[in-house]
């Protein structure tokens, strides 16, 4: 359980970090290290160098304004917990992040690390995709911003180039009266979910669903929005009948993996149950 040898650098600026990555193709970035350290321990990766972002200023801020919520790449799970503004600025984010990992890991694990690692069952990538968030990267060729739906390309795979560093995640403005829920099922608290869903919609004055967003984690090879389910919800009156129909459609829309923990049929059933629970919870909250 010892990593293979590597060089270590902790540059003081983002530009120096990018230069190191560009000059050293086998280098990897580390920040909190809560996903990377086990990967190194198992020697699933053997980088020639680790470039630590701990000294780079300006990556650890949470900014909230009229455009939404900006999370710096080095914001930790506990920073999201500790920021009371997010209760109203992004309640879905807070609820989802409450399910991430264990106490000690929450003290070091970061936004950028979770996005870059891209576990299909991870909560933050699921929130990013569901909310149509944007991910900004800085690299040798300059900065670029990608929609979360384009960023995640498969299990543990993203559109990030080796010399690029995730600098921030931008979640669009969250209206106050939005209906929302986050539901997941894991075998133990803090474990990766066998499946989960993040969903929200706005309700018009006639009680009809508008702007439905339904995302799933752990049930596809990457976090994914279920557009069929969203179409089914939009323009219809909220109620148990609609929720059941949506849950059934969600189960059909996912393509879950078989693994040691659950087979595909079980995960499909889980998605239906969690989407139904989420829609009910979002409907009754605050009424």
């Amino acid at each position: 359980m010892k990593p293979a040898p590597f060089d270590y650098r902790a540059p003081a600026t983002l530009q120096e970090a990018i230069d190191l990555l560009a000059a050293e193709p086998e280098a990897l970035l580390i920040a909190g290290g809560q996903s990377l350290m086990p990967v190194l321990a198992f020697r699933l990766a053997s980088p020639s160098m680790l470039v630590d972002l701990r000294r780079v200023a300006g990556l650890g801020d949470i900014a909230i304004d009229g455009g939404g919520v900006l999370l710096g790449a080095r914001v930790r799970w506990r920073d999201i917990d500790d920021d009371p503004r997010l209760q109203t600025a992004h309640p879905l984010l807070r609820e989802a992040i409450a399910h991430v990992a264990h106490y000690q890991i929450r003290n070091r694990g970061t936004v950028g690390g979770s996005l870059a690692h891209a576990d299909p069952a991870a909560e933050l990538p699921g929130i990013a995709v569901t909310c149509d968030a944007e991910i900004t990267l800085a690299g040798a060729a300059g900065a670029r911003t990608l929609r979360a739906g384009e960023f995640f390309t498969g299990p543990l795979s993203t559109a990030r180039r080796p010399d690029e560093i995730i600098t921030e995640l931008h979640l669009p403005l969250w209206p106050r009266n939005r209906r929302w829920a986050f539901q997941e099922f894991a075998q133990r608290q803090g474990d990766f979910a066998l499946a989960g869903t993040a969903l929200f919609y706005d309700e018009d004055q006639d009680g009809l669903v508008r702007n439905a967003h339904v995302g799933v984690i752990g049930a596809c090879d990457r976090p994914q929005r279920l557009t069929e389910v969203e179409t089914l919800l939009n323009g219809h009156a909220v109620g148990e009948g609609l929720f059941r129909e949506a849950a059934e459609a969600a189960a059909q829309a996912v393509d879950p993996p078989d693994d040691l923990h659950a087979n595909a049929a079980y995960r499909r059933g889980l998605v239906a149950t969690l989407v139904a629970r989420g829609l009910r919870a979002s409907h009754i909250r605050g009424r």
Partner: protein
Amino acid sequence: MQVSFQLNGEPVEVDIEPRMHLADCLREMLRLTGTHLGCEHGACGACTVIVDGAAVRSCLILAVQAEGSSVVTVEGLSSEEALTPLQAAFRKHHALQCGFCTPGMLTTAHALLTEEPDADADRIRSALSGNLCRCTGYIPIVEAVLEARAAYRKSDKP
């Protein structure tokens, strides 16, 4: 690579390979073997230490990343002579048997109660959920931490 940090209130400096995690640095280089290594990949919580006030898994942080930090291990919780109220509560409630997980339980509970001396049983269970114990069944551990809260509330007052 030269690394220096505060360890249990004293400055230390070690010359290590970058790949060495903090737990190995504490145990092998600094000879503080109270920090136990169970899984070495962040699953068991036995190696929990406190870095800059926050409980972290010392197998999931490189020693070089602790540069300039303040690190507290189980050895730093008490003096040689007396148990802390938290340790005394562990003894009273039989919150350990083989003792392998105990350093991680103590450091985690200490960090939690220092920040949240009013943590309820649910919060304590949640914070300790990343620490595995194969002896006790956890109930005595939660009881011990609940009892120790009183001491942390007092120490908050000047």
